[in-house]
């Protein structure tokens, strides 16, 4: 709507009747039409979101197999989930991945942002260098690259070999495969880092001046000034990373060739959902899984919002 109200002001001052006359002049109608035209992609996008949204809600209560008409089965899909060991495994994988990689990548992002905030020369270059991986993070090419880096003949094992260490099979050993993906996720800390950097820029320098006159150490300044002032940014990053992490798919899919292997060690929840829907033709079950994920994400986001009252500090 902002687009609509703003547009006449900038584009054609002549037509904008200041009083907002109820009668719409033809020229204005044309302007409105172009406004709606610009909004059309959004409406179409909503259409493609809303329809599948309700379709999947309905399908979650059916035995839809992609080929024949769905039959209503009530809560059977949700009940079946409790007895599905692979579903529980996929939850385990996703939770471990989330709760290990999100805190680490946030900590790394904040650390790098603090360093960059000190006014390095060529800051924008560093910013780009650190940001680049996260732009590509979920992409197929990067995951393939990761596969090669951590492969048996990859750079990592080659490096370890210099010291006479026989590196493990990072990708094919179920003991290490998930950790390899966690490292990949931490490496793509760029987007929270850029947001942290923006947040740090907002902290008024005079606070630090005052603190240093009072003789506060750097650590003390960080704890008492920086952290509370950027806590809303931390909170925002935490929520975004958490949601993104629960929805991880590409990394697991590419790394394991779509299987979630080795031995289900990278069977992310979304990957299993995909397998159920498209290789086992249990779209009803897959839809139910999607709704369970929605609920899980909603619960965790809610918990975070409640907890935020105790640690997030809003300036005004």
């Amino acid at each position, binding site marked *: 709507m902002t687009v609509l109200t703003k547009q006449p002001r900038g584009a054609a001052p002549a037509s904008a009747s200041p009083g907002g006359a109820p009668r719409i002049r033809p020229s204005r109608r*044309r302007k409105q039409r172009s406004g709606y035209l610009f909004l059309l992609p959004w409406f179409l996008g909503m259409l493609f979101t809303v329809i599948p949204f309700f379709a999947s809600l309905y399908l979650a209560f059916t035995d839809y197999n*992609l*080929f024949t008409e769905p039959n209503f089965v009530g809560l059977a899909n949700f009940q079946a989930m409790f007895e599905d060991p692979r579903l529980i495994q996929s939850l385990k994988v996703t939770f471990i991945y989330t709760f290990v990689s999100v805190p680490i990548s946030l900590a790394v992002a904040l650390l790098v942002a603090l360093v960059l905030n000190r006014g390095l020369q060529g800051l924008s270059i560093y910013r780009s260098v650190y940001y680049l991986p996260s732009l590509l993070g979920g992409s197929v090419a990067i995951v393939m690259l990761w596969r090669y880096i951590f492969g048996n003949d990859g750079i990592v094992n080659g490096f370890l070999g210099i010291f006479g260490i026989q590196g493990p099979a990072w*990708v094919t050993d179920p003991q290490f495969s998930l950790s390899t993906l966690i490292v990949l996720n931490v490496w793509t800390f760029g987007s929270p880092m850029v947001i942290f950097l923006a947040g740090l820029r907002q902290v008024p320098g005079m606070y630090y001046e005052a603190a240093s006159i009072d003789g506060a150490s750097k650590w003390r300044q960080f704890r008492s000034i920086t952290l509370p002032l950027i806590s809303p940014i931390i909170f925002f990053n935490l929520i975004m990373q958490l949601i993104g992490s629960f929805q991880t798919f590409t990394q697991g899919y590419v790394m394991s*060739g*779509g299987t979630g292997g080795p*031995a289900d060690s990278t069977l992310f929840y979304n990957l299993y959902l995909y397998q159920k829907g*498209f*290789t086992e033709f249990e779209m009803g079950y897959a839809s139910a899984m999607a709704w369970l994920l929605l609920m899980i994400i909603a619960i965790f986001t809610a918990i975070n919002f409640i907890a935020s009252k105790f640690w997030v500090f809003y300036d005004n």
Partner: protein
Amino acid sequence: MKKTTNTPIPRRVVLGAAVVAAGLALSACGGGGAGTSGAGSSGGNVELNFVFWGDANRAKMTEAALRIFEKKNPGITVKTEYQDSAPYADKLATRFAGGNPPDVLAMANRSLLEYAQRGTLADLKSLPELNLDKVPETTLSRGEVDGKLYGLATGVTTIGMVVNKTITDQAGVTIPDDKTWSWEDYAKFATEVTQKTGGKVYGAGYDVATETGPIMLARQRGEDFYTKDNKLGVSEKTIEDWFQYSVDLRKAGGYPPAGFFEQIGGSPAQSYLAKGTVASQIIPINNFRGYNEAVEGEVVLLRIPGETSGERRGYSADPTMLWSIAAKSKHPKEAAKLVDFLTNDAEGAAEVLTQRGVPINPEVADSITPKLSADDKTFVNLMAAIQEEDLPPAYVYPKGASVVADTLKQLTTEVEFGRISPADAAKTFMEKSNAAINK
């Protein structure tokens, strides 16, 4: 010109233009992929959508054959789509689900029953345009479900053992006679290769997780991995032995350590045989030429071990993949004509050669033999020799066969890293597979 920008364009004109543009876009999509040589495409032209999986080379050969088809069948154009097997399977499922199935399609053995029993495929026997007179009954039976023919083999193949003879010669190891060798002989041979190359080359390098291995072993022991009534017929003992065999071979040094194989199943050029880190591998034998070209040195094609030392033969002539026609195809007649062409036309087969296995029409197979390279002849001759022997029957894969394949893959890793014993893995395999089949 300036005038037109100010005067509002009548809505009807805009609408009309949009419709024309949409029409143009659609027709461009339609004609684009086929690369047709403009075979008199006037009114009444039928366009078939034909999808298959494979690489660019396969696509090139297929297109060449399709151009001949279009020339022989004026009024029919064929629009093709292809991709790798995993995305292909996903896309196929989505297209059927969306009510927009292709007319003619390549179908994997393990998916046939799944699609057939859901009524998505046409009975090929009901289409008179498709002539099946020359096709052997045993080949037809691999696409039959409840007396109806839902898939017709694109060609037949089987698995075999390839050995890099240059490596074994240098190591001074003799390759055993493949007509009589047992699995023990193979283990002994593999271990010897590893020892004599100082551990630089592992003697054995086959993929434990691919189901064709245990399928063959089961048959050699008198069991059917999948039975006539579409159930799991393999015994727990056979699966346990299949796992135990690789564990023992690894312990002896003939098989690489856990985690060694990272991307098995890729192209011959990416294989460990081509890298020279293993001396032997099990392959689908129609890929023999690819391996011989990718590997530096001489590669020999052998029969699978245990064929004569076992209870009965393990071999069967297996469909590489199957041709199917969608039940909802708007042009079943033309689709049947295309499948007939792909099966019975010697001129078309001369373009595709053995790209999808040995042609199932023996006359067509004979007609292309002179055109084959030496390596392809080796494979065709082995296939012919095997087919002349007394082979046990083989059946359509049951519903849920893809879950069985996935289960085998997971358990193979568990066994590989010693997380579970072969006996426990076999037990789990039976439980999970039986639960997944025909549920």
